[in-house]
Every structure is written in structure tokens, then in C-alpha cells.
């Protein structure tokens, strides 16, 4: 799409072409962040599901519903 724009109407306008290239780079960066983010989100969800499947929630729950003596400074 960007190539088409350059060829058809902006080929003699170097400033505009530079601007378009800058936006292309920014666009690619955004896409990279987007896909990397989605991959991380997926990793987080998968890890949480695996943790729940392994029964880790029980440990978290049993610790959280009893007064944590270490946390409050009693030991």
C-alpha cells in the first residue's frame, strides 16, 4: 500500500516519502509490540490455567484466609 502511494503520486516529493517511511517504521514497531503483547498475554493465561490445574490456588487460598503471622510481624 505504501509502495503504491509512492509510485503513483508522491515519487517526486522526497519529504513526503521520508515521512511515509518514518510512519512505516512506526507502524511496524506498533505491530511488533502488538503481537509481542498478545503472545505475552497468551503465555500469562496459559500459565495461570496450568497453575490452577496443578492446584496452586489451594495454597494461595489457605495462606490468604488465615492471618499470616510472618506478614504482621509475629513470626
Amino acid at each position: 500500500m505504501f509502495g503504491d502511494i509512492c509510485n503513483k503520486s508522491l515519487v517526486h516529493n522526497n519529504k513526503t516519502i521520508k515521512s511515509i517511511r518514518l510512519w512505516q517504521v512506526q507502524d511496524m514497531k506498533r505491530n511488533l509490540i502488538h503481537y509481542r503483547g498478545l503472545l505475552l498475554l497468551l503465555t500469562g493465561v496459559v500459565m495461570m490455567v496450568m497453575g490452577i490445574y496443578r492446584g496452586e490456588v489451594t495454597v494461595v487460598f489457605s495462606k490468604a484466609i488465615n492471618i499470616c503471622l510472618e506478614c504482621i510481624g509475629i513470626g
Partner: protein
Amino acid sequence: MASWKRRCVQIAATITSNSYFNGFVEGSIYRGNLKKVCIPGLNCYSCPGALGSCPIGSLQAVIGSINYNLSLYVLGFLILAGTLMGRLVCGWLCPFGFIQELLHKIPSPKIKFGAKATQLKYLKYIVLAGFVVILPAFVVNEAGIGAPAFCKYICPAGTLEGGLPLVLLNESLRSALGPLFVWKLALLVLTIAFSIIIFRPFCRFICPLGAVYALFNAVSLYRFEIDAGKCTGCGECSRTCPMGVKVCENPNDPECIRCGDCIEHCPQNAISSHYVLMERSVLSPEITKHNE
């Protein structure tokens, strides 16, 4: 100067995560199913009002347990929260961060850390590795259970939100106080004193949760961006930043808590925040115009 919007969110987050009001009356803690879920900020699950679990406490609990060496559940949660928000959690949602900001409002001479803090900021990574992961995993009792070292020896949030209210309200706990409580109380007093003169000292130098989210700031979907066309390099953003971040050099610096003060104060309106998921591909108006 925090915007009123951020203050409202901070107040709402603090109240929401501590809205078991019966606990404050009875000197007990909430025991319902919501405690199975971690909240994104640092909030002791032994606070009488706490509805959710502290991710750092939960991580240590699972690591220190007999059956598991690593908590996929809590790490997955931290990856999820870190990717979605990064240190936006610190600036907008963390109750203990909010308390430190309120303390910093007390009139007194203020120390502004800038470049001086460059080395001290690494301390929180040492705390994360040493007290949250290594000690609970390897220093275990006869039964093979590791103590939550960070909560036990360092965390002032536990003393303030859990220890003090419970000790005041519960006589049986009061009778069990010992040297550890004195140690933790001393750390709390130090944290309060430093918070009055330094902006968020615990978040900047000690907090292991801040360290985790700091690692995600660079890859988080919530981002700050500088318009190079508008930025004149005046440095107003860096001067305004309460965390001492050089915003114009790295708008997604690990220390940035996304308070947005730089956005408010930029005279050129060159800094913006955006969510990558919502604007994945953006065409400049110029290109769009030519494309039509």
C-alpha cells in the same frame, strides 16, 4: 501534582481492595472465595479489610510450600497484569503506593532523586530475587516449608495494613508480640519518614512487585510515546517527573509509574499515552489524504 482522575482511581482501588469492613470492627480477616484471586497492587492479605490476595505474598507461599517450587498461577497473573498495564499498576492501583504519595504531601524539605538513584533502583531486583524467590525456596524448616522472607523481614505494607490494625483490635495477637514486630515496626517508621521527604522511596528502591512490573514497562501494551516532530528537548518532562525519569530519552523507562505528570506539563503536547491493542495500525493524516 497528580491529576484528580488518578487520585480518584487510587482512592477507588484502595477502598475496593480493602472493603471488608467487618474485619476492622471484629479484628479478623476476610475468608471468602475472593481470596483465591490476586490483586495487582501491593496489599497485605492479612489486612482486616483485604478482599484479594497479595501477589508477592502468594508467590512466596507457593514457592515455600512442600508441593511446588514455582507458582505458575501467580507468575501467569503477573505476566498478564504486567503486559496489560506495566507500572501503571504502581501509579494508579497500588494502595501502598497511594499511602506513600499521601505521606509525601506532608510539608517538609523534599529530596529529589535523579541520577543519584540510578544504582539504588537495582536494590528492588535483589530483594525480589533474594527474599521472594531464593530464601522461601531454599531456606526451609524440618517439614520442608519455606518462610515468606520478604513478608517476614521487610514488608512495611504488612505491618501497616495488617499488623497494626490486627494487633490493636485482637488481644490474643497483642500478647504474642516479640522482637520481630519491633523490627518491622522500625522499618515501617523508616518507610514513613522517608516517604515524607522522598517520593515513593519503597516503590523505587525496595518493592519487589514494582521490580516485576518494571521489567514489563518496555513491553507493556500501555505505552507513552513522544512525537519527535513536536518535542523541542526542553527537558520540562524530566524536571516534572516525580520518579526522576528522563522521559524524553525513554518514555517507557522501567521506573516510570505512568502518573502522567509529564503529559500534563509538556509545553508542546509532545507526549501521549496509548493502548497498543486499540490502535495497532495507524496511518498518518498525510498518507490517508494521499491514499484517498
